């Protein structure tokens, strides 16, 4: 029998010829148009991880605190005292590239639904954003659109956007990254799962109506972006945060009745995905009549119903006979709740339309037993990596204690520091987070920009637990991290470094790292280099998660992040495995910020000592650094290697110092190295600092000393009264990997870094540094 579709029609659903053959084999016949569309979305990378699944298997997923691991709508951890926290990260990269405002807004909406589908109330959102450079007008438009889209959805929904990270690099010019992480506190006694059960139980469609918006978004997300992608704007959904706010209240109320058996968010691939996953996860079938589905447009055909990604919709399985009480709740909130079908024994997804069967597919074929590609890993390093590794510091212009001697003229180290503080990646993100409501719900302990991680109080706001947690001090810390340039230059060490940095950031606020959600943003896995990056980075993440005792509870894979130029040549982004990590604190009043607190406090460096830098070129390096990229326009070298043992002991020391009340501020040295970290602590605390460097071996360049990255380093300030106890502790636990750097100054005093023989190499008024740092992003965005 000849296929009823042309190769082009098959390809337009994102299905490869081999996959089509497989579909015919599974069905024992050719699919119809609707079925072909269903396979197209369910077999997309976005839904079935056909390229990444074998790699994701490496991740550790179990631990004492893990209640729900990968496979559900979100992971859940045990936060102690009967509290359970759901969290997950998800990308909305391609929609945001095409339609920044709605793309980002619905990205937030989608991840919030993943959280409350589990029975958890969303209590915080973080974002990891990657943009091109701000000299590009299209990038400026994308930045403005994405930020207002996130603000629009999160602010209206009423969830605080408490943290995140934003970097700017040419590599993301055509393909920005918008990753949103949501955290929720469980309100229902049981965690609501997605597996359907109970033959004859009714299937309810709840929430908003179905229209033609967001058609085939999952397939769209699983292809490269081209000039023609703008024509795919119908594949971008439109969000309604007000409706979602009503939906969360109605859902949590509904779950508490005990009448709901299972729930699944309608995100990517809408009705297709929710029906097939609920059926497959429960080992049953689902029979759904599209004529019952509330719609917002007339004349829709099954293909459109099934592939629509209209927002703010969910699918429930209810206990038979209890439909009415659920429907009453949703209607009170002005939402639809309609019985559209039932659970059946036969493990099929059966779709009815106008009295006929419009589609009939084994649920497993759509949701579980999906294609899998084991790809060959290239045995040699890619050429770009080899070239990058040939770089050495010898290629840099001469420098001495006076500064850097560039061809265009000399710059003092103070000039160089200001240049780095003016780099949008390092500069203040206030222009961005000031647009996000970060205090709604009355639990935000550390405000954005003031600390290395976000900290919120874990306080149930409704339900049986609420009264018991008034005045609770229990807290949760969260961070998102990834240095894409490091991962590009060394996917294994770079990805492992992202885990180390996330754990370090949590430690800097005094929290113990607990678990990870990851968002793998990569180029095409079908190309050898793309697959090598993905494979190496996942290996690095897996090792990092084991090293730091933070299992992965789920996440998201976003491949094909490439832009085709006018000649059709693909340019991939930097491989960017964003790590979202959560940690716990017993007492939020101990949470520590990054700014100096009090003049006279003593400043310490934990991690690789300055005098040891010359002998640790792998651990503190200019390779892949922000300094190299910004000041020398060079992306080369090897990024810092993670010294796991040192990281663990430094982080433990930092946490211990905070819990003992010795440490007043803590900030890690990441992009921009020691000098930038010191400047940030000065700016944040509005206090100066006097730093005296030790005797340095001649072999170490000044720029590596000041701006080199890596070395598991944290800068802390300690009250004078605590110094004896603190130093005794360091002596016993850090094996010499610490040193005293200097003293916190008065508000009017500068940041002064002097050599062992008392010559100032950096001397800058805090107000001057702050002015550059605070205005860098806004100044570029408002440039016409």
């Amino acid at each position: 029998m000849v296929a009823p579709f042309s190769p082009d029609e098959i390809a337009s659903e994102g299905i490869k010829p081999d996959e089509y053959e497989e579909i015919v084999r599974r069905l024992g016949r050719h699919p119809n148009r609707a079925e072909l569309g269903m396979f197209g979305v369910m077999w997309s990378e976005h839904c079935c991880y056909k390229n990444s699944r074998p790699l994701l298997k490496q991740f550790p997923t179990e631990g004492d605190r893990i209640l729900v691991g990968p496979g559900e709508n979100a992971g859940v951890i045990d936060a102690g005292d009967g509290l359970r926290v759901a969290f997950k990260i998800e990308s909305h990269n391609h929609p945001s590239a095409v339609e920044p405002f709605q793309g980002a807004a619905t990205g937030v909406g989608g991840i919030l639904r993943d959280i409350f589908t589990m029975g958890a109330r969303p209590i915080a959102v973080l974002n990891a954003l990657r943009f091109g450079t701000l000299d590009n007008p299209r990038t400026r438009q994308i930045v403005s659109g994405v930020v207002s889209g996130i603000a629009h959805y999160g602010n209206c929904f009423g969830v605080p956007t408490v943290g995140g990270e934003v970097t700017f690099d040419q590599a993301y010019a055509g393909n920005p990254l918008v990753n949103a992480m949501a955290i929720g506190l469980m309100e229902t006694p049981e965690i609501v799962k997605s597996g359907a059960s109970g033959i004859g139980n009714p299937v309810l469609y709840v929430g908003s109506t179905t229209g033609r918006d967001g058609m085939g978004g999952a397939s769209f997300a699983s292809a490269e972006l081209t000039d023609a992608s703008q024509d795919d704007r119908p594949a971008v959904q439109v969000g309604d945060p007000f409706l979602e706010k009503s939906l969360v209240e109605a859902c949590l109320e509904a779950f508490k009745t005990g009448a709901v058996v299972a729930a699944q968010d309608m995100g990517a691939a809408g009705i297709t995905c929710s029906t097939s996953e609920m059926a497959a996860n429960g080992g049953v079938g689902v029979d759904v009549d599209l004529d019952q589905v509330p719609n917002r447009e007339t004349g829709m055909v099954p293909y459109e119903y099934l592939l629509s990604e209209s927002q703010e919709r969910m699918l429930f399985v209810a206990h038979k006979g209890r439909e009415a009480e659920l429907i009453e709740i949703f209607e009170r909130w002005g939402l639809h709740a309609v019985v559209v079908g039932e659970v059946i024994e036969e493990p099929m997804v059966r779709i009815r339309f106008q009295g006929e069967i419009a589609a009939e597919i084994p649920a497993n074929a759509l949701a579980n037993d999906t294609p899998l590609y084991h790809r060959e890993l290239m045995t040699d390093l890619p050429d770009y990596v080899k070239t990058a590794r040939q770089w050495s510091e010898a290629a840099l212009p001469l420098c001495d204690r006076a500064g850097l001697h560039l061809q265009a003229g000399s710059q003092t180290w103070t000039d160089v520091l200001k240049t780095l503080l003016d780099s949008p990646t390092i500069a203040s993100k206030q222009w961005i987070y000031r647009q996000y409501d970060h205090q709604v719900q009355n639990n935000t302990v550390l405000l954005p920009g003031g600390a290395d991680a976000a900290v919120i109080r874990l306080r149930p706001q409704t339900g049986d637990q609420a009264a018991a947690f008034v005045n609770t001090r229990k807290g949760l810390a969260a961070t998102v991290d990834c240095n894409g340039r490091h991962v590009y230059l060394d996917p294994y060490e770079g990805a492992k470094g992202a885990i180390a940095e996330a754990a370090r950031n949590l430690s800097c606020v005094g929290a113990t790292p607990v678990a990870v959600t990851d968002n793998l943003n990569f180029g095409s896995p079908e190309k050898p280099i793309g697959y090598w990056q993905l494979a190496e980075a996942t290996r690095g993440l897996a090792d990092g998660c084991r090293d730091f005792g933070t299992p992965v509870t789920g996440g998201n894979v976003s491949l094909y992040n490439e832009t085709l130029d006018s000649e059709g040549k693909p340019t991939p982004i930097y491989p960017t495995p964003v790590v979202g990590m959560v940690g716990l604190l017993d007492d939020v009043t101990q949470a520590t910020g990054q700014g100096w607190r009090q003049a006279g406090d003593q400043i310490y460096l934990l991690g690789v000592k300055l005098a040891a830098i010359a002998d640790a070129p792998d651990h503190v390096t200019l390779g892949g650094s922000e300094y190299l990229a910004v000041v020398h326009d060079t992306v080369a070298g090897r990024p810092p290697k993670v010294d796991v043992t040192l990281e663990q002991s430094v982080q433990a020391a930092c946490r211990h110092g905070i819990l003992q009340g010795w440490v007043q501020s803590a900030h890690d040295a990441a992009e921009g190295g020691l000098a930038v970290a010191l400047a940030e602590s000065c700016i944040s605390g509005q206090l100066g600092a006097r730093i005296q460097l030790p005797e340095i071996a001649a072999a170490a360049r000044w720029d590596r000393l000041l701006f080199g990255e890596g070395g598991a380093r944290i800068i802390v300030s300690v009250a004078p009264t605590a110094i004896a106890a603190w130093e005794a502790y360091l002596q016993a636990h850090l094996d010499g990997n610490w040193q005293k750097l200097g003293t916190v100054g008065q508000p009017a005093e500068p940041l002064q870094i002097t050599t062992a023989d008392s010559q100032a190499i950096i001397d800058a008024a805090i107000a001057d540094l702050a002015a550059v740092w605070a205005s860098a992003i806004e100044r570029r965005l408002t440039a016409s």
Partner: protein
Amino acid sequence: MNVSVIVFPGANCDRDAAYVTRDLLGQPTQMIWHEDRDLKNADLVIVPGGFSYGDYLRCGAIARFSPALQATVEHAQRGGLVIGICNGFQILTEAGLLPGALMRNRDLHFICDRVPLRVERTDLVWTQHYPDQAVITVPIAHGEGCYYADADTLQAIEDHGQVVFRYCDATGAPTPESNPNGSLNNIAGICNRQGNVLGMMPHPERVSDPLLGGTDGLALFQSVMSKQLQTI
């Protein structure tokens, strides 16, 4: 004191307000669904922040038609206490309980920040616990908080001492630089002539819990509940 918090679909600071009145200050607090007319013997009605009905038409424009808000207007007309915070302030101006209107912020962006306010009057039931001319720091979080009134109305508001809070700098001076959203006369909050209805864009309920690092808003709730709190 019986406190009633109106719950509109899209309200999102209703629980934050109740947390302060019920959990921190121990006053009986009821949540009133927007379709209900019964305010449950409220002494104080709180119209909370958020995005009532999505605020897609004009902030607060739909909320004023709700039965709960109609009842609130009657409560205010009887001399009952009403405070509108953020979206609640917008709703009270739409309902005609307070003069003027809130427009989009000067820079057209949503702004979430902590800003200094000067307390203009301390003879009100709302502010009696603040020292005279106190400068307090209170969070703001709004996209449409630019206070506007025509020249005559504005003059009348000033003449009757209806400005309760004004955006100011750290020293208490209401400078143009310290005005976050372009509000006329740096107005952050006003009351009606009788003083029983207060509307303000800043969020006092977000700065009432010492665990979160500030209590500049707590005095407002303590002021209005001072009699009840004394008897505890």
